[in-house]
């Protein structure tokens, strides 16, 4: 048996993207549902409880009516892990992801958010120049493809912050910047959500790492024990700020703090914050070299 790789596999990728985008928007992952339930159980402020109760009701209505959890269909951000022997070249994988995003937008239909950054004119069904955004990882000795779709809403993306701390600022500088960023963001990024922090690397890479951090299942810990310890500490400190659900005051300001790190230059100490709202949407697919697709929440 043979398959026409460039057409058939590209269609498989397109079908997967079309499914993932809509699925992510409608059905939030179980780890997130559990985190929101825990938040609802421990919140004590009156407005905060009202917010978390409304979120709970909203998620149930999205389930029962098969509707979107949030109206902001976001920018479709994909992460691909491409096996060394996967038979479709990434240029064609990109085309499949782009066409699937557009097809889902037209067929559902979904709100189209994509605009030209200068003219602000709409550029198409959630596609445009360099949209959707795809991040790539390449895996040796493997012939599969994993695709993760994270539709990223603008309310939380607008609350992104970067600081080039200096080495003398140390970890204290990192912690202070994360706390100041989340207090300053207040209710705007739809708390309680996931605070993604990227440390090390370069300015652009730190922000990429912060984005990677928000796509992890809620409450997973960085494998490096030093970083995991910092995640725990920041999670506790952020929830002492009192910002609360939707910034109306309360006990639960964040569901989690996730950190990704890279080694850096001896004179650099970059720290980036990328926020993910409570509707932390995420869906994944595994595609084999012969085109079988299995939908999952995680790689």
């Amino acid at each position, binding site marked *: 048996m043979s398959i026409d790789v460039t057409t058939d596999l590209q269609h498989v990728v397109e079908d997967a993207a079309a499914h993932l985008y809509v699925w992510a928007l409608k059905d939030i992952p179980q780890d997130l549902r559990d985190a929101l339930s825990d938040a609802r159980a421990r919140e004590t402020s009156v407005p905060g409880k*009202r917010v978390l109760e409304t979120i709970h009701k*909203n998620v149930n209505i999205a389930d029962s009516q098969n509707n979107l959890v949030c109206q902001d269909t976001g920018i479709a951000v994909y992460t691909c892990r491409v096996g060394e022997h996967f038979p479709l070249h990434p240029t064609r994988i990109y085309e499949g992801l782009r066409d699937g995003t557009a097809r889902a937008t037209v067929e559902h239909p979904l709100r189209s958010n994509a605009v030209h950054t200068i003219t602000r004119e709409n550029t198409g069904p959630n596609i445009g120049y360099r949209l959707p955004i795809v991040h790539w990882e390449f895996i040796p000795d493997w012939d599969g493809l994993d695709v993760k779709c994270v539709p990223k809403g603008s309310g939380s993306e607008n609350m992104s912050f970067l600081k080039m701390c200096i080495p003398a600022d140390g970890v204290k500088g990192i912690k202070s910047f994360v706390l100041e960023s989340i207090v300053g963001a*207040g209710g705007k990024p739809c708390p309680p959500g996931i605070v993604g922090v990227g440390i090390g690397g370069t300015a652009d890479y730190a922000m990429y790492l912060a984005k990677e951090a928000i796509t992890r299942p809620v409450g997973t810990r960085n494998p490096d024990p030093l970083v995991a310890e910092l995640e725990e500490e920041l999670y506790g400190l952020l929830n002492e*700020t009192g910002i609360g659900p939707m*910034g109306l005051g309360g006990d639960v300001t964040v569901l989690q703090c996730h950190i990704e790190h890279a080694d850096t230059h001896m004179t650099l100490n970059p720290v980036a914050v990328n926020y993910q709202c*409570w509707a932390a949407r995420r869906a994944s697919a595994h595609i084999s070299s012969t085109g079988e697709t299995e939908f999952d929440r995680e790689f």
Partner: protein
Amino acid sequence: MANHTVTFPITDPNEILKLRAGDEVTVQGHIIGIRDRTQIRIFDQGVEPPMDLSGAFLLHTAPNVRKVSEDAEGKGTYEKICIGTTTSARMVRFTEPLGRQYGVRAICGKGGFPDEAIAPMHELGMVYFAIVGGAAALETTQIEEIEEVMWEELMPECLWKFRVKDFGPLTVGIDAHGNSLYHDVQTRAKAKLEELIARF
């Protein structure tokens, strides 16, 4: 913290004055959807809004909709798919002219307005309602019908007229008496921040 039901548009200013920061409110009647580009057109490009905004409740939104028909002039009718609320802070500078020039009495969005909204809301008898951002599936069930759409060329940032039933629960974030929950939360959080950083 009291519970209220208010029907919009209002004609009696006391309907707004009775609301206090932190109160819970449910809204009936008609509300108007508006967003960045809609307000840029009105205030920066000087185009008169083709809808009466006096006593109005404005919602910061850009909905997911399906076009169901088009009349002879090309004006569309739309049905709802998913309608939710966007971040208000980007649009705070329009608060004062909306109240003074057009008589808007309530603005609803998510995430709150910064302190610059407090004075005009106090002076003009306006209120800011906090909705739960992202809770669009629920919000959609409370919008009975899209009655009118103007400026379709700005899709989805048009002027939308929605008929609502039991819209809420909303929290009074900023009242017409100079109180703001956001100001209070920020003041406390900034003091706490200093205390936390001092621990490092």
